[in-house]
């Protein structure tokens, strides 16, 4: 291999700047799409666990559809197809007046895909806790809806802090898809540096370290949360 590593390239203007701004975009996309994923996932997951009804079916359809189309295809649907199929005035607004159109499209697409995965986790958590806590809660005199709302849902959510950590890390990785619609996040910037300098491996190494560091921070933070309020705290309280 006669590649000439040249790490100093990364300290030259404007490449340091590019990588730094790429990292910021990655974090921004991850956080905003995670906020969407959590809110949508919580609602859909809870609705999916309700005893019966048409709402439950709708939640199921959302989960099935959004989980089974590749996220990149979904991103393209939001970016290329949506402006064409909505009424013309809205389509024009999306194309012309929407602020940061690529960023907004990316977080909506990634957020709704990740939301369907979060919804499944929420449903699984509620199901796991509900089976044995529901009868106990009913025995204390709560009505079924109260038992569900006050006991099963909160405890179910606490139990899934661990799995949600992995879902967040999946979302961080998904943020890289937004490079296909022109958001210059971390992966895009390192590709960009390759284009300009032919010293891509240095830039890819930095990007790799960036994802690892984000992953470590998230895992550490979530472990802390898990110890305080999550499944780990529940197990401690139970033993």
């Amino acid at each position, binding site marked *: 291999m006669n590649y000439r590593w040249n790490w100093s390239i990364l300290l030259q203007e404007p490449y340091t700047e590019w990588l730094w701004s790429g990292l910021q975009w990655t974090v921004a996309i991850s956080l905003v799409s995670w906020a969407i994923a959590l809110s949508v996932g919580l609602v859909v997951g809870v609705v999916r666990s309700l005893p019966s009804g048409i709402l439950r079916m709708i939640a199921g359809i959302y989960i099935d559809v959004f989980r089974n189309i590749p996220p990149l*295809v979904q991103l393209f*649907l939001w970016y290329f197809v949506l402006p*064409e199929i909505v009424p013309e005035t809205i389509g024009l607004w999306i194309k012309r007046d929407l602020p940061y159109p690529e960023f907004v499209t990316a977080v909506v697409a990634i957020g709704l895909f990740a939301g369907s995965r979060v919804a499944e986790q929420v449903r699984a958590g509620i199901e796991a806790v509900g089976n044995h806590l529901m009868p106990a809660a009913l025995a204390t005199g709560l009505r079924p809806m109260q038992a569900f709302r006050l006991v099963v849902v909160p405890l179910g959510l606490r139990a899934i802090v661990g799995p949600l950590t992995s879902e967040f890390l999946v979302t961080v*990785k998904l943020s890289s898809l937004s490079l296909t619609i022109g958001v210059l996040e971390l992966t895009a910037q390192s590709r960009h540096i390759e284009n300009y300098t032919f010293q891509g491996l240095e830039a890819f190494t930095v990007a790799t370290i960036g994802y690892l560091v984000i992953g470590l921070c998230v895992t550490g933070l979530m472990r802390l949360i898990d110890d305080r309020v999550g499944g780990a705290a529940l197990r401690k309280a139970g033993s």
Partner: protein
Amino acid sequence: MSDFDWGVIARSWSFLAEGMALSALLVAVATSGGLVIGFGLALMRLSSNRLIAGPAAAYVTVMRSLPLVLVLFWFYFLVPLAIGRPIGSLASALIAFVMFEAAFYCEIIRAGINNVRQGQAEAGLATGLRRSQVMRHIVMPQALKAMTPLVLNQIIIVFQDTSLVYVVALHDFLTTASIVAARDGRPTEMYTLVAVVYLIICLSSTKALEFYRKGRAG
């Protein structure tokens, strides 16, 4: 709202079929290669020698925390440099997929093997079987049974992941569709088609897998 023109699909059918064939090839190679290397990695991780287990664990952790898009770039640029000649985007994508999926298959296989109770292996040894015999006749059959649904599930994920070779301009199903979309100015029809095809294939496989799981559990 644009007028739908579904004829565009009929006109580009053979090109789209080529794209689907490439996606299928990627799934086949990534799964078979990933399983073989993943099995090797799993055995390394299960070793009690830290010099063997450590690197395998590090490899798996790094691969699993990287976006596949970045891994595709890594191999796309690294492999030609490492061997000194260009190998084309298909070969580099195949290598990237195999190496990436190997990390995921490793964890599935390791979990499957760990799932078999320690006592069974000890009992096997106590009856006078050698280690390799215990592995082949006692541990692996049970581990295989536990990991089959997870492997099948991973294959569905790999199929979805193949759409990412778009970033190295390989003509998979999504890329062929986007080429037609740009050429004919028909993004609505083409991307809807891609979404529907993926939805039908993945959803029916997922449901079939759930059915298979329930049947086995019950």
